[in-house]
């Protein structure tokens, strides 16, 4: 069953009888060593800190 996490403008999702070519699937993930320490009261800008 599909979850609807949207709460505004719900859209119906139906299978078309005569479907056009499928839209290409998009899936990407990147990875690095985590070093985030920000919180909602502050965001650290590491880059180009010199005037």
């Amino acid at each position: 069953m599909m979850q609807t996490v949207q709460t505004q403008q719900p859209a119906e999702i139906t299978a078309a009888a005569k479907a056009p070519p499928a839209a290409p699937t998009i899936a990407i993930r990147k990875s690095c060593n985590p070093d985030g320490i920000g919180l909602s009261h502050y965001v650290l800008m590491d880059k180009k800190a010199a005037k």
Partner: protein
Amino acid sequence: MTAAVLNRANAGPALVPVDIGHDVYAAVTDPCTAFWALVDKTRIAESLAGGPLLDAYRDKTDAFARELHALRFELKPSGVYLNPTERCNLNCTYCYLPGKQRSSGSHMTAEMLIASLDKLHDYFRSVMPEGRKPRAIFHGAEPLMNKGAVFAAIDAFADDFTFGLQTNGTLLDDAAVEFLTSRNVSIGLSLDGPSADITDATRRTWGGKSVHARVLAAMEKLKGYGSWSVITTCTTENLHYLTQMVEFFHVNEVPTCMLNTVRCTLPGARGVKPADGDMAKAFFAAMDRTHELYRESGRKLVVANFANILIGILAPTARRLMCDISPCGGGRAFFALAADGGLYPCSEFIGLPRFNGGNLLTEGGVEAALASAAFQTVTTRDVDTFSPCGDCAIRHFCGSPCPAEAHEMNGGMEKIGAFCEFYKEQVNYALRLIADGKANDYLWDGWDEGAGTTFDLCST
């Protein structure tokens, strides 16, 4: 890694479809690994029945489960939020710190601040890899109320910490700006409106005076500096002006801002809490406007809190803010030091004595605090384990922030935060941007430097 996680990974992928409100695409996610894909919404059943997507993901399921588990449970602190004073010269409506502390509290002496940083340095050296500096951020109340101690500490530990400062901006005179920028200190300001009448609704002095013009003067001084940002706290008082706010920031060359929902930890904040739907409508109108401004000018105004949601989807380990993950970063990726030496999981808890994990200088220090029941209450808050988050397809893009407000406003750690529906909408908006190929327009240039691609699929 727990046996449960391994068993889950070994059982193979189980993707959950999610309506993101896009004309062409729906999302499918594996909530347990924070994996996602966008598939033709007329072919969801086909996509989930088998084929290249499932084949490719099956090969990565275990690695992604391990990556997310490490991010959620295996970090060591690498930053500290330092509160060098209890006092503030402002009396903002929604502040998470008790009014008595802010009006008549104590300063930390320079000697105590330096002794604290000395001890913190020893701790960080014991857990962080060689060559990586810990971050130390001077934080609210208003750190420049104790400027002498703060500046002495920055000079004493210039080689040992990367420093930041979050300030209301009212005490940021020319000499302070020169001191901080010459030492590459990252500076955050706060401003709630594009004009004084709007800012004044929530941010004024104890005597009721406006500080809008003083913050604008500070912004002017920081133009051209590479490392500054401005936080706007979104409330019922300024919600209708968020689009004007981003226009104002853009014209004033603010490189990064945050449009944060008000944290509802203390009762004063709840009086100006916007409804989720109202927040979403105003926020996305402002986000759309930042994109128009970028297209018109070629210059980005990054809205960091939203950028972090987007990054959390594209590269979970690259997120910079640690609120939107469960457990949150409080007591895990960072912790807070109060002006009396008390250690807390996050500054948000400083007004809540039951979350005090002991004293840095007179009790067991950081290790004891991290192991304390006070910290563990926060660091074990896990969205996998309570309803409704445990069944939510996007729970690891959101994290159900914030534990402080969940506890104080909604009655416990196993409750949702204050803006559940708004977070769902942010994730949908982010996924729609990815579907439309616009995600990078909302992110810092070079946001993924140092990140490798671990999954990349574009197929029919």
